[in-house]
């Protein structure tokens, strides 16, 4: 099992010159950079490995940057995406941000600012949510993005396994009941593949699964959150656990 480089950046632009330039500059700064000249090949690269940041040109032949982003969000929601455009109307910018694009940047790119953005994106703690409820995942995605986390999604055990093997997470939120296994199996995967990650068990079955929850807690989950969530409490917990890891502290860091 090889963990992918956390500082990997994807550049998708049909202008080969700009791809090479971004690659030269970002490589010089120590990032790993891959480039693609159209949406489909960009997507191919993303399917092979996770990228922390994607810089996407808006206007490209075939698939435009925003359409590409919609696909990225489906398959690799954790990719923090920046849309680069030569001529954005306020409408396109607004639409892009509503879709989940992190920032819209105008060409010619102000490089210092772009580098700041890349740095900032890489500093955002990476969180994995393992839950088969896609609507809930989408809401949590919006919520956590809003609070400065990078959010990776897995809807079943297999996807969770893959995600856990390819990236390092600060916090993993695990639904007690998911297709292909249960929360305990995922908890075990985290322990194997991502031992430093802190875990939060999320469940809607406060009563009927009392016993299961008790066991999971005994087995070492860091927190339990019940659906429907007390949102401020959930954010507080995730933030606390993400920070706890960062400080290298064990147990509660309150």
């Amino acid at each position, binding site marked *: 099992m090889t963990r992918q480089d956390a500082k990997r950046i994807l550049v998708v632009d*049909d*202008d080969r*010159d*700009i791809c*090479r*330039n*971004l690659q*030269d*500059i970002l490589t*010089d700064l120590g990032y790993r950079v891959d480039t693609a000249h159209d949406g489909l090949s960009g997507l191919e690269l993303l399917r092979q490995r996770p990228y922390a940041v994607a810089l996407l040109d808006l*206007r*490209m*032949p*075939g698939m*435009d940057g925003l359409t590409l982003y919609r696909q990225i969000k489906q398959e690799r929601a954790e990719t923090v995406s920046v849309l680069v455009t*030569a*001529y954005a109307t306020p409408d396109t910018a607004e639409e892009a941000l509503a879709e989940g694009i992190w920032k819209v940047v*105008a*060409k*010619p*790119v102000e*490089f210092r600012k772009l580098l700041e953005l890349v740095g900032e994106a890489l500093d955002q703690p990476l969180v994995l949510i393992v839950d088969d409820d896609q609507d809930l995942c989408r809401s949590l995605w919006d919520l956590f993005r809003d609070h400065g986390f990078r959010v990776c999604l897995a809807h079943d055990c297999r996807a969770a396994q893959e995600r856990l093997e390819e990236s390092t997470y600060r916090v993993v939120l695990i639904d007690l009941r998911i297709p292909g296994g249960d929360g305990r199996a995922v908890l075990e995967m985290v322990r194997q593949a991502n031992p430093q990650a802190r875990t939060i068990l999320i469940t809607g079955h406060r009563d009927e699964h009392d016993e299961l929850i008790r066991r999971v807690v005994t087995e070492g989950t860091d927190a339990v959150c019940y659906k429907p969530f007390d949102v401020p409490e959930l954010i507080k917990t995730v933030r606390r656990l993400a920070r706890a890891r960062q400080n290298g502290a064990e147990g509660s860091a309150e």
Partner: protein
Amino acid sequence: MEAELIAARYHELQSYVGWTAADAERIAAAAPLLEPFLPLLVEDFYAEIQRHADARKVITGGQAQIERLKGTLSQWIRELLAGKYDVAYVSRRWRVGWRHVEIGLDQVFTNAALSRLRTGLVRALQECWQGDAAGLQATVRSLNTLLDLDLAIIEDAYQAEYASRLQRSERLATLGQVAGGVAHELRNPLNVVQTSVYFLLNARNPTPEKIGEHLRRIERNVELADNVISSLSSFAKIPVPTLRSIAVEALVRAELEINAPGEGIAVTVDCPAGLPCALADGDQIRIALGNLIRNACDAMPQGGRLEILGRASDGAVELSVADTGIGIEPQNLARIMDPLFSTKARGLGLGLAMARSIVEKNQGSLRVASQPGRGSTFTIRLTAAPKEQAAT
């Protein structure tokens, strides 16, 4: 418009409707009789305006403005009846129409309002008339002619001003469109230049090869940016064509050598033996043809068939460029030859506009037929050269 010109126009209208000095005298004589009725007519006029929402909404200054406008209207009627229709008079009339455009009062309200005033004035004249019926009839006729003249000059001003404003706003819209297209095409090379400069200034360990690579890249992109400006200005001034007898097949083959279609595109050229020469500027038609060929190839990113056919068609030579590419959506078909309209990710959107403009300057026409998903056919139609002229 200049005051003298407006006055000349008014006098032309006067002679057209047969206005004479006698008419002016009749009006001047009736003026004192009508004077006592004026306040009532003005009151009635504004009461009517209050009843119409669209007319009312242009009065934004409340009662104070209405009082002011009543004064203006009284003045307008007095001038109308004063019998002096000089340059200053006509200028003031012209200004009414101009002002209506400015405040957004539709001309129909002026027409309706004048009709109401006309009825009021005629009724007043009938009430106070002391002379004979023939005199009354003549005065009413003069009054009607005078009002028609006023209405004509006001409407003329309205239309002139309206058209000029429309033209101005269209020019601004075009400018916006140009700005958008140019911005995109210029900012991409600028972006490359800027990032290369950033690399050259900030890279920690650039090798000499890397430095050379970035300098060449800057040079190339400056040239790209320059080409954008060149193609815009060459579109703006296509020279007058030199019409000669040209052999279209040779032209097609020469152009295909320069714009060689990429791999995966099968090319067929079919010009029947005995196809007449076309009467056109060969250099210009080649530019148009080149644009059509490049478009056809761009429409077939996965490859396909490019077919260029020549045929004679009563007195004309037609050259069609057909592809088996993505085709054009029906909603884009009408706009596809507009300058700066493009469905491609790159490019200013001048290719087809340029092709059409060239072909039309060469006294020909360019038409398109397309089926989305099946392909497009662009056809250049040119005048056939007379038989005895030898091909060059």
